[in-house]
């Protein structure tokens, strides 16, 4: 192994890793709002709105992320959707994780005991207040881990945006290999960096989870 080379390219890979972190965190952030929107649409009485949300979720879940990325980046301009590579990565990431996240959020809301809503309603709370003060805080602790798993998948999938030439960790690694012909060293380094990022995400999820359930582990 060429250790000197590894030391030399590390700063370049770290810079690229920041792009990975940046794209992923923005996609997760906006994805959360997409997810909330999808959950909200599914509460509508007007069936076509619910169908739209269900249909959207089915399409996203039924197609590879890679294809979604290519479709938006290369197919988008034909319908006037021209996005720069990074924006496209964030955009597709957000709309992809949003679909999965909406299912996690909906599932956790549904698994809060119905007695909780009944108790709140019996005190005179309205539907919205019941949701905000009683159901959502409890659903939050249930959804943290499943949303966390999705976030980890998204970080890993972010390597796919290299195909639309975003200079993130994987793309940078490939570029460096092109000039150094040292795939073992460079891919090992980039893999290590993914591990650091992903374990950091897991740590944050675990902390958030423990905080959310502290009422059961006083």
């Amino acid at each position, binding site marked *: 192994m060429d250790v000197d080379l590894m030391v030399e390219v590390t700063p370049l890979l770290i810079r690229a890793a920041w792009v990975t972190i940046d794209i992923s965190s923005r996609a997760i952030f906006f994805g959360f709002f997409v997810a909330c929107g999808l959950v909200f649409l599914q509460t509508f009485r007007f069936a076509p709105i619910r169908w739209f949300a269900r249909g959207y979720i089915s399409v996203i879940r039924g197609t590879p992320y890679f294809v979604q990325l290519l479709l938006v980046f290369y197919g988008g301009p034909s319908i006037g959707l021209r996005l720069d590579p990074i924006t496209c990565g964030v955009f597709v990431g957000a709309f992809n994780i949003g679909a999965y996240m909406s299912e996690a959020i909906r599932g956790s809301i549904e698994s809060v*005991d119905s007695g909780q809503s*009944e108790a709140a309603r*019996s*005190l005179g709370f309205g539907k919205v207040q019941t949701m905000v003060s009683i159901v959502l805080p409890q659903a939050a602790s249930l959804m943290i881990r499943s949303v966390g798993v999705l976030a980890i998948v998204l970080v890993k999938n972010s390597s796919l945006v290299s195909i639309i030439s975003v200079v993130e960790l994987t793309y940078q690694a490939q570029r460096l290999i092109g000039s150094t012909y040292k795939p073992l060293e460079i891919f090992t380094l980039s893999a290590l960096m993914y591990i650091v990022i992903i374990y950091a995400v897991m740590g944050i999820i675990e902390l958030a989870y423990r905080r959310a359930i502290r009422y059961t582990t006083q």
Partner: protein
Amino acid sequence: MSTEQQTDTPMVEVRNVHKRFGDLEVLKGIDLTVDRGKIISIIGPSGSGKSTLLRSVNHLEVIDEGAILLDGVQVNRPDMKGLAFERHINHIRQNMGMVFQHFNLFPHLSTIDNVTLAPRKLKGMDKKTARELGMQQLERVGLAEKADVFPNWLSGGQKQRVAIARALAMKPKVMLFDEATSALDPELVEEVNRVMRSLAEEHMTMLIVTHEMSFARDVSDWALFMDGGVVVEESTPDKLFTNPEQERTRNFLHKHLGNNH
């Protein structure tokens, strides 16, 4: 129905209430009057409709026919829709305290926050005043020292007492108890009964669905036996429990008391 002459509007009135779940009619024309300061117990086998009736009183179950009135104001309003009804029912419910079999305390809130959440959010009470009120209610049920712990750290009996305090904090006109002691271990039943007795001494109007025959007999002013969605028999508790007129009541009591003694 109470035999006493009514001098003012009854606190709760149930008139010819019908409730169906699909093809199954669980309430088949129930009439019931709870006068101010009185305690009415409803007994009956599982599936008799007694819990459904109680839940219908504060509209957790939507009745199909009939009327329910709280202090002269109609609870169910088939003529009202959407937000208008939502506002109406939320206001009505603030005047009715409900205690559930499984307590339904909010696990993510401390005991005191369970008690003060509704006064703060619904009556706009400031935090300090709400805490004072909450502490009073917790003292009333003997749990002031548990104010800052989470419900998961309480025994079943303590949970139910907090649930009672939570309902009382809204200063309800009537308290509805839906098998409040059924989920408790036998040794924890008495502490909850004691709290309910103290409410009775304060002349709180109460409608109690229960399996605790001796308790019902002790505290109630009037008792009903329900079976198959109808009120089979009603009278003073002494008469209902010792000398019921109906065969079905006798059978039920015989079976129930037989199992307990």
